[in-house]
């Protein structure tokens, strides 16, 4: 098993930490993992993306030009990464702020309105965990117990009281993702 993922959106959406939690979930499941951020002058509102690879075998390149799954959280990232998904691959996107919806017909497309859902839950900061839940529903590559273990490892202990809320967001994400079109 090998899953090559790009997660892309705005700085401040929790793109990098979502990738880190996913990567740590892989570590908990005894998989090989890599987490490679496209780092730059960091700022809120700038673009942020991270390449995460989970694999049963040794990982060669942490940098990729095509992906099994793209998780897209803003329009700029849609424009940049829609064409880089492998045929038959998966695109998951949040509809918030998307003005041009995906056009590929050779990939599986899912929509998750996580921004709206996070607002409804009065927990806007758990936005990225809702998205993660949606992703895990579509691609259950790591067991939920390992995701929670990964979450614990990624969060500093002073934030551990937030784990139940994040768990709830992940569960909500598994419920509110919808397939838009099929390859």
């Amino acid at each position, binding site marked *: 098993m090998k899953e090559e993922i790009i997660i892309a959106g705005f700085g401040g959406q929790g793109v990098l930490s979502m990738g880190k939690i996913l990567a740590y979930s892989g*570590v908990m499941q005894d998989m090989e*993992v890599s*987490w*490679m951020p496209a*780092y730059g002058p960091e700022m809120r509102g700038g673009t942020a993306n991270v390449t995460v690879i989970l694999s049963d075998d040794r990982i060669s*390149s942490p940098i*990729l030009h095509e992906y099994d799954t793209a998780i897209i959280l803003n329009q700029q990232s849609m424009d940049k990464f829609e064409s880089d998904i492998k045929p038959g691959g998966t695109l998951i996107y949040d509809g918030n702020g998307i003005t041009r919806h995906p056009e590929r017909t050779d990939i599986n497309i899912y929509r998750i309105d996580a921004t709206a859902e996070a607002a409804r839950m009065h927990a806007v900061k758990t936005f990225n965990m809702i998205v993660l839940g949606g992703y895990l529903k579509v691609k259950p590559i790591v067991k939920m117990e390992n995701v929670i273990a990964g979450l614990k490892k990624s969060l500093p202990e002073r934030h551990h009281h937030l784990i139940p809320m994040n768990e709830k967001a992940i569960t909500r994400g598994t419920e509110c993702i919808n397939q838009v079109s099929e390859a």
Partner: protein
Amino acid sequence: MRELKLMKGNEAIAEAAIRAGVDGYFGYPITPQSEVMETLMALRPWDSTGMVVLQAESETASINMVYGGAGCGKRVMTSSSSPGVSLMQEGLTYLAGAELPCVVVNVVRGGPGLGTIQPAQSDYFQTVKGGGHGDYKLITLAPASVQEMADFVELSFDLAFKYRNPVMILSDGVIGQMMEKVELSEQKPRWTAEYIEENHTWATTGKKANREKNIITSVQLEASVQEAFNHKLQAKYRSVEENEVRYEEVMCDDADYIIVAYGSSARICQKSIEIAREKGIKVGMFRPITLYPFPTEQLMKRAKQVKGMLSVEMSAGQMVEDVKLAVECSIPVEHFGRFGGSVHSPGEVVEALEQKLIGGDK
């Protein structure tokens, strides 16, 4: 089994330094390596092992603090990124000239000048061809994973003290910033004053009545004395070249073509050879782990078997010169690489291989 941690290459350097029993780290922050000192400051090793961690006022100051610590036989290090390492060049040639052991980590970013903060491999020439003035060499290790970032810290100190020479860990923004699984070694004790006095008799540990004074210097005004010292240095470098070459070969045995790449480029190229082999192109990868000493003989051996080599580096073409020298231009050697902070994709490398070598072969 020891605990596996997920961490950045820069964080691994810091963790490994503490566990190796390093005595001191002196540095100045610069992207993309600031996590080295950030991690050290967060882990507070002065409370556990007694290791000194100090933010100097500049890179020039940090490398000279390293000079001071090394002169006392202590295991000391610094880290920086390209513009900061340029500032350290005077210190590095003085360290080499005074035969002082130390470890310097360069997490390379795009240049020249202040350049960009994104990854590059364009400090190859600076590292292996001099950088500072005079006939000296830096033993240079190029890690290609976060695990190697950790492992090479202790290895570098071993080599530095074995040869009384500065050792450079030449990394880049990819390896520094990426997270992977790492297995860290057990905590080792720092050297005691008695150990240093016994094993490093050259160190300035305080003159005792029963021995000559130790002088740490790189100045010899008498030309004949300086020449004799240079001969001694050269003999040392020949011994390094004979004993310390490290490299890795991936799928080279049946290869028609070989990609030569180090550090993060080697990781990218490993994917490229997977793609190329799916297309039926027999290509292997040769990864120099030590950039100095360069695996010259080993590359020459492969040159007898393959039709061409492609040196892939995030620079406008630096290591390619050493590859050409190694194979004595007996086969075509081409260069490919993005630079200035851009990173080539595995697919781009395959295209370059097809265009520059295989196309020319038809």
